[in-house]
C-alpha cells in the first residue's frame, strides 16, 4: 500500500546506510529530520525495521541448530517448533538471571527481598524457592579474563582483567588477552580478533590469533572456525586466521585433531597433527602441510612481562595526575592511600590546604592491601566494623564525590561509600544498592534519593571501578558517573546546602540504632577517594578516569 517503499526511496537508502553502519554525520541528521517531520516516512521506517528485526529473530531461532553450538535436541526447521523452543530458551534465561540475582551467597550479589526489616541479618533471599528449577545456585560465567594488555575492544564496554566472562563474543581491535576457561584450558588471544566463547570446552574463532594451552583436565577443548574444528588432545597449539578465512594451525606440544566444521566430533578426523606439525588451510577448506614452522604467538611469560610494563606506565601516569590533583583548591578531602608505611592508622588528607586536621581519616579495622596496581596501596574493607572516620566542616552549595573502588560482593542491600553519621537535614548519603544502583540520598527536610539505573553487573565485582556523583546546585542536577561516563541525570527539585560534619567512608553510624539497614559496611577495596566542594564537569571526570584507569 505504500508506493514509496522502493529501493530508490531516500528514506530507505538512509536506513540501509544506518544498518550497514556507513551512515555519515550529515546523513544521520537528514534521516532524523525526515523522521521528525513526516509521519508517513516514520511509518515506513517502522515497517522496514520491523522486517529487519523480525529477520534477525527468525534467523537466530533457525540457526541455533548449527553444529558448533552445543545442542540438547535434534534440530528441526518448522517455525512453530522454533518459536516454542525460543520461548523456552528465553524463559530459562530469565530464570537463570533470577537465580543469579537471588543467590547472594554464591555470587555475592543479591536482590532486595522487599522484607525491609530483615535484610541486614538474613543472608539468603527467599525468592529462589518459588521458581521451578531454583534448587541449586548457578552462574553463567564460563571463563575469566586474567590478563589484558594494550587492548582496544570493539565492544562498547571495556572489559578489564578480573572480569568474569559469559558465553559470547570477545572482539578486540588490537592488544592481547589471556582467558582462562573454567574447564582449565587457557587461551591467549592476539587482536584484531573475534572469538566467541561457547562453552567451557569450546570456542569459535571468526578471525584472529589464538594460542591454547590445554591441561589434561580440559582435554578435548576445541576451537571451531567456519571451516575446521581444532580439537586439542593435550597440550598446546596455535591457530591464526585472517578475515578472508585463510589460516594456519600448528601444534607446539602434544596432539590435535582437525575435523570438518560441519561434522560431529565423533566422526573420524580429517587429519591429526603432533608436536611441531602444522597446516595451512583456506576458505575452501583445502589443507596443505606447513613447510616451515610459523612464528609461535606470544607466550604467557611475554604477556605477563608486557602486562607488568603496562602497569608501571599506568601507575606513573596516575602519579602525575595525583600531583596535579592535590593543587585543586576546591578539594575538601583527598585520600590517595599512599602512606609511608603499612602500620600507619591515619589516612592523610593530601589536599594542599586542608580545612582542618580532622579531615585526616582515622582508620578503624581496615587492612592495608594493594590497590589498582601491585605497587599502589589500598585499604580493604571486609568486616562490619571496618571504616575510615573523618570530619568535614562547612556548608556547600555543590559537592562532588569520587572513588576508585573494587567491590568484592554486595553483602546487603546497601553498601556505604561515604555516609554522614546519622541523617540530619543537609546530610548526604553516598552508597550502592545490591542491585547495582548508585544512590545519593539527601535529607532536604524530607528524604530525597537519587537512584542511578542498575549500572553495576555481576561482572563488575572484583574489578576496579571509578564512581563519581556530582550534586550541582547551580545546574540543579545530580549526575552519577561510572568509569568516567555519565550514567544518569536527576533534577534537584528542592536545593539545600550540603553539610557533612562527622562522617565515614565504607561504613555508617546510624544516629539512633534503628535496626533497619543499620549495617551497611562495604565489602571491597578503596585506593583513592576525593571530596570536592564544587561540581566537577563531565570533561574533568572523564580526564580523571583516563589518567587513573588500571588497565590498557
Amino acid at each position, binding site marked *: *500500500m*505504500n508506493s514509496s*517503499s*522502493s*529501493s530508490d526511496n531516500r528514506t*530507505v537508502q538512509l*536506513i540501509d546506510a*544506518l544498518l550497514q*553502519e556507513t551512515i555519515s*554525520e550529515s546523513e544521520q541528521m537528514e534521516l*532524523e529530520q525526515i*523522521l*521528525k517531520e513526516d509521519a508517513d516516512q*516514520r511509518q515506513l521506517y*517502522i*515497517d*522496514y*525495521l*520491523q*522486517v529487519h*528485526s*523480525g*529477520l*534477525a529473530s*527468525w*534467523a*537466530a531461532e*533457525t*540457526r541455533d541448530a548449527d553444529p*558448533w553450538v552445543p545442542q540438547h535436541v535434534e534440530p528441526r526447521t518448522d517455525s512453530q517448533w522454533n*518459536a516454542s523452543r525460543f*520461548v523456552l530458551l*528465553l524463559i530459562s534465561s*530469565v530464570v537463570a538471571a*533470577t537465580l543469579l*540475582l537471588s543467590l547472594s551467597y554464591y555470587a555475592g550479589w543479591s*536482590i*532486595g527481598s*522487599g522484607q*525491609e526489616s530483615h535484610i541486614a541479618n538474613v543472608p539468603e533471599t527467599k525468592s529462589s524457592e*518459588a521458581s521451578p528449577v531454583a534448587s541449586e545456585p548457578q552462574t553463567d560465567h564460563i571463563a575469566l579474563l586474567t590478563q589484558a594488555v594494550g587492548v582496544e575492544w570493539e565492544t*562498547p564496554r571495556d572489559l578489564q582483567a578480573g572480569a568474569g566472562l559469559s558465553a559470547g563474543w570477545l572482539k578486540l581491535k588490537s592488544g592481547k588477552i589471556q582467558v582462562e576457561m573454567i574447564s582449565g584450558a587457557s587461551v591467549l588471544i592476539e587482536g584484531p580478533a573475534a572469538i566467541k566463547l561457547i562453552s567451557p570446552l569450546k570456542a*569459535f574463532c*571468526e578471525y584472529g590469533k589464538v594460542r591454547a594451552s590445554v591441561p589434561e583436565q580440559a582435554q578435548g577443548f576445541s576451537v571451531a572456525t567456519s571451516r575446521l574444528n581444532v580439537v586439542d588432545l593435550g597440550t598446546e597449539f596455535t591457530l591464526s586466521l585472517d578475515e*578472508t*578465512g585463510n589460516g594456519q594451525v600448528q601444534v607446539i606440544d602434544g596432539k590435535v585433531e582437525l575435523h570438518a566444521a560441519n561434522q560431529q566430533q565423533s566422526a573420524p578426523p580429517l587429519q591429526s597433527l603432533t608436536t611441531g606439525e602444522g597446516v595451512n588451510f583456506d576458505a575452501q577448506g583445502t589443507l596443505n602441510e606447513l613447510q616451515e614452522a610459523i612464528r609461535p604467538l606470544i607466550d604467557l611469560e611475554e604477556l605477563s612481562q608486557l602486562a607488568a610494563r603496562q602497569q608501571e606506565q599506568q601507575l606513573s601516569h596516575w602519579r602525575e595526575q595525583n600531583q596535579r590533583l592535590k593543587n585543586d583548591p576546591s578539594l575538601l578531602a583527598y585520600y590517595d592511600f599512599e602512606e609511608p608505611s603499612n602500620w600507619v592508622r591515619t589516612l592523610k588528607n593530601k589536599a594542599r590546604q586542608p580545612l582542618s586536621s580532622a579531615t585526616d581519616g582515622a582508620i578503624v579495622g581496615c587492612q592495608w592491601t594493594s590497590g589498582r596496581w601491585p605497587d599502589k596501596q589500598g585499604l580493604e574493607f571486609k568486616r562490619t566494623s571496618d571504616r575510615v572516620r573523618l570530619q568535614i566542616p562547612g556548608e556547600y552549595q555543590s559537592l562532588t564525590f569520587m572513588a576508585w573502588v573494587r567491590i568484592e560482593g554486595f553483602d546487603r542491600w*546497601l553498601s556505604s561509600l561515604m555516609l554522614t553519621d546519622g*541523617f540530619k537535614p543537609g546530610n548526604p548519603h553516598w552508597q550502592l*544498592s545490591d*542491585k547495582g544502583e548508585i544512590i545519593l*540520598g539527601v535529607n532536604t527536610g*524530607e*528524604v*530525597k*534519593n*537519587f537512584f542511578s*539505573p542498575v549500572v553495576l553487573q555481576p561482572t563488575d565485582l572484583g574489578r576496579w571501578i571509578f564512581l563519581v556523583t556530582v550534586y550541582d546546585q547551580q545546574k540543579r542536577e545530580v549526575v552519577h558517573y561510572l568509569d568516567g*561516563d555519565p550514567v544518569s541525570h*536527576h533534577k534537584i527539585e528542592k536545593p539545600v546546602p550540603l553539610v557533612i560534619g562527622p562522617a565515614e567512608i565504607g561504613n555508617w553510624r*546510624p544516629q539512633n540504632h534503628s535496626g533497619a539497614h543499620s549495617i551497611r559496611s562495604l565489602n571491597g577495596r578503596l585506593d583513592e577517594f576525593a571530596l570536592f566542594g564544587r561540581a566537577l564537569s563531565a570533561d574533568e571526570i572523564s580526564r580523571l578516569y583516563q589518567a587513573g584507569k588500571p588497565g590498557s
Partner: protein
Amino acid sequence: MDSNRDTTGNPETTAGAVPDEHFVSQLARHHSLIRGFIGTLLPHQTDAEDVFQQTCLVLWRKWQTFDASQSFASWACGIAFYEVKNFQRVQSRDRHYFSDEVLSLIAAQQNKSLPESEQRKQALQDCIQKLDHENRKLILDCYHGPQTIQEVADQLGRSRDAIYKKLARLRLKLMDCMQQSLPSTEAGS
C-alpha cells in the same frame, strides 16, 4: 520513585517480585513483540539484544507494579523505551543514535499498532517461507551466522556491496508481501 519519607535515608525498595507462571506466560506470549519494538529503536542487533535482555529483567523486577487491567504489551514497551534511552545515554560513543525526540516519536507511533503485532509477525513468517531456498539461506547467513558479510560475499563470488543491496531488496520485498497479506488498516500511513 526517587524519594520516600523514611527518615533513616533508606531508599525505597522496588524489588521482591518472583516471576510466577502468569509472568512467564505473558512474557512468552509477547517476547517477540517487545524484541521487535526495541529493534525499531535500536537498529543494531547486538544493541537490541542487550537491551532486550535487560528489559526482561526489569519487567520481572517490576512485575508487582503491573496493573492487571492494563495491557501487558504496552506496559512492557513503556519500560523497554526507558531501557533504550538509558542504553543510549550510557553507550553513545561510536555509533549513531537517534535523539530522544525522534525516539519518542517512533515509539509513540508504534504503540498505536501494538495490538496487530501478532498478525504482523505471522505475516512475516509466511512471507519468509515464500522466498526461495537461496534467499532464505542468504538471510540466515547474513543475519545469524559465524561469517561476516564479507565472507558471505566471497563465498558467493559477489561484492559486499552487492550483498547489502540484495538484503535491502529482500527486506522491501518482504515488507510489500506483508502489507499485501494484512488487512489494510490506515490507507496512506
